[in-house]
């Protein structure tokens, strides 16, 4: 497929240019975006994708929230300073031509004279929208991943039954898998309910064994065309669908301003996208690798991907669903709680092994399709892998 004539630029805008804008880079980006949308005759809610430079100081989600853009299902960044300029078009064209998104804002703003001047070299502090964002939490002491996730968890526990028991089940099942995985940091080290309950408190309601490892390591996967894949060494693992999303009113880890916070709307959108692309339904998924920086986040993702109803994940888990002989064997490598924390990419490796049939804890049943997800609390995503 060629991208020729598949996409077009429909709106353009600049702010004024000056030696001192008198306002933030976030505001400049917001004004340019607003005016480009007006030029196109589009509304903020029509936008579903964004792309910019890795060097840009304004987060996509900060800009989306400022302008009133809703759910995003595509975002990407291009490196190498000014070398990124038409890279934004490159990203946008691929996303729109392939159907991953429909309407993309390419943006860049900088106070390159009154703020950080490139002529000053690679020195000096940067006052970024992201740094300002964390400043709403650090003075109160809320500044660790466990603390942000605990805030959602407390709310989820308030709205569900048997959440604590389900958190233990998740940690315990995964440790059982890891105990049988020679590559896992917790190989041959199972734990008991007593160990779990008596472990150090990290941020209530989370205790030590609810939290993932911190580990050194690397993981990689290679992706090529289905055509080439057929001629290579192993059984191909097809990508059936893949979604990414940043739901409306998003902050990085601290989206505490939505009507309800005991849910992850970004993952709901990513799941919808991936199911649509693949034509699969939750019933078609045989096993999963679900991002597990902390035990409660596994529960919310089970709901996002439709394995159970909202606020019913604890019962689903307590029915033994995540075990090797359960409805959805999950994190069979031990996960990031008990194998290693390689930011979810060791999970992609495990998901591919499950499709190949070569997991160290390969379930007895036939595995056709496997879900693998990204970290939550931030803009997130997930992929459905299966046999070609």
């Amino acid at each position, binding site marked *: 497929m060629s991208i020729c004539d598949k996409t077009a630029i429909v709106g353009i805008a600049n702010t004024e240019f000056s030696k001192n804008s008198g306002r*933030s880079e976030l505001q400049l980006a917001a004004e340019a975006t607003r005016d480009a949308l007006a030029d196109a005759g589009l509304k903020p809610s029509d936008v579903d994708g964004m792309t910019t430079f890795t060097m840009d100081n304004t987060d996509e989600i900060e800009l989306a929230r400022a302008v009133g853009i809703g759910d995003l299902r595509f975002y990407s960044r291009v490196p190498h300073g000014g070398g990124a300029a038409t890279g934004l078009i490159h990203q946008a064209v691929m996303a729109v031509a392939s159907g991953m998104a429909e309407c993309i804002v390419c943006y860049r703003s900088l106070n390159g004279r009154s703020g950080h001047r490139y002529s000053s070299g690679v020195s000096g502090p940067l*006052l970024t*929208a992201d740094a300002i964002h964390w400043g709403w939490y*650090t003075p109160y002491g*809320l500044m*660790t991943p466990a*603390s942000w996730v605990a805030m959602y968890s407390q709310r989820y526990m308030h709205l569900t039954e048997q959440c604590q028991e389900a958190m233990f089940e998740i940690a315990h099942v995964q440790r059982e898998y890891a105990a049988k995985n020679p590559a896992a940091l917790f190989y041959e080290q199972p734990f008991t309910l007593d160990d779990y309950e008596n472990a150090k*408190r990290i941020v209530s309601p989370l205790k030590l064994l609810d939290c993932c490892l911190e580990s050194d390591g690397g993981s990689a996967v290679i992706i090529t065309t289905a055509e080439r894949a057929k001629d290579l060494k192993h059984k191909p693992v097809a990508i059936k669908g893949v979604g990414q999303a940043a739901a409306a009113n998003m902050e990085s880890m*601290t989206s505490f301003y939505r009507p309800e916070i005991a849910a992850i709307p970004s993952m709901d959108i990513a799941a919808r996208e991936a199911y649509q692309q693949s034509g699969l339904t939750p019933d078609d998924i045989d096993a999963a690798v679900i991002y597990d920086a902390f035990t409660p986040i596994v529960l919310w993702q089970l709901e996002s991907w439709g394995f159970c109803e909202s606020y019913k994940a604890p019962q689903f888990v307590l029915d033994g669903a995540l075990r090797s002989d359960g409805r959805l064997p999950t994190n069979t490598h031990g996960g990031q709680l008990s194998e290693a924390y390689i930011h979810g990419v060791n999970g992609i490796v495990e998901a591919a092994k499950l499709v190949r049939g070569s997991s160290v804890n390969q379930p007895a049943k036939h595995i056709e399709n496997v879900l693998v997800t990204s970290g939550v609390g931030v803009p997130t995503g997930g992929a459905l892998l299966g046999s070609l």
Partner: protein
Amino acid sequence: MTPEERQAFEEELYTFVGRPLHPEPKRSYDAVNEAMIRHWAEVMGDKNPAYTNAEWAASSRRGELIAPPAMMYAWNQEGYAVAAEGRPSDGLSDLVAYFDQHGFTGSLGTNVDQEFFAEAKIGDALFEDAIIEEISEQKVTARGRGYFLQTLAKFTNQSGELIGTQRFRVFKFIPPEAPPKAAASGASEELEVPTRIHAPRGQDNGWWWDACDEGKVLIQRCKNCQTLRHPPRPMCGECQSTDWDSVQSTLDGEIFSFVEMHYPKFPGYKYPLIVAVISLAEGTRIISNVVGIDSQDVKIGMKVKGKVEQVDEKTMLPQFYPVEA
């Protein structure tokens, strides 16, 4: 240490494992006796009559006094001379010197494990036979980088009966550099007390923190459509206007969710530390601390009232208190 130096250091280091501390079992300086037992029991506050009450002990199932088991190692302990003259050279002091020569000058006794097999009675002589049992791989701890070493001492009496064993662990480490002294210009040598980590103040949020410094919590309001928004941002997401002003919050609120921070603890913060998402009466939310209440009494839905307070030398923050029902 370069990797090569470290390898050479460790090669020699691990040759210490298994070495005896003394050329032959070291005999206690005194036989087990009532006077030393009485001193020990007094200092420890141990009132067990089996140690000090001869009359009681005579009628007990043992028929005589015994030494407190935990006192086992004391009989062979070097005396006050150590303070003045230093420890006599033995297997352990050679190892300690080896560590010291390579910069691992810090010492921290970490734990002692004792096991008891028989009782020491008045008149017994105790013999200590000790070795360097284990040296760990290099570890990085809060105290610094170093190695745990463990000695194993076996105590027997004059008939060769095993009284007990003691394992003693010491961490030998490179102590961190001393904090730099205040500038030579006669500046105060008092340590600066850490304060909370502040928000960087930029064009979109500086005004909010400036008002907080003056004791007010403001909520940004769109001048075009009157929508309130927090945290502040430069454009209204409803109508895309960049014109805004603000209203002052009454700080009447309700707890929407909360956490208690346990680990890690950060310098400059007071614990117990509760952080909550608070729904304000105006309709926006704010993240803040809940204070003046035991952590186990905090509940979702609880009414709270905030006031801006000075929480440390440099920081003004809203803090929320429970509202009495």
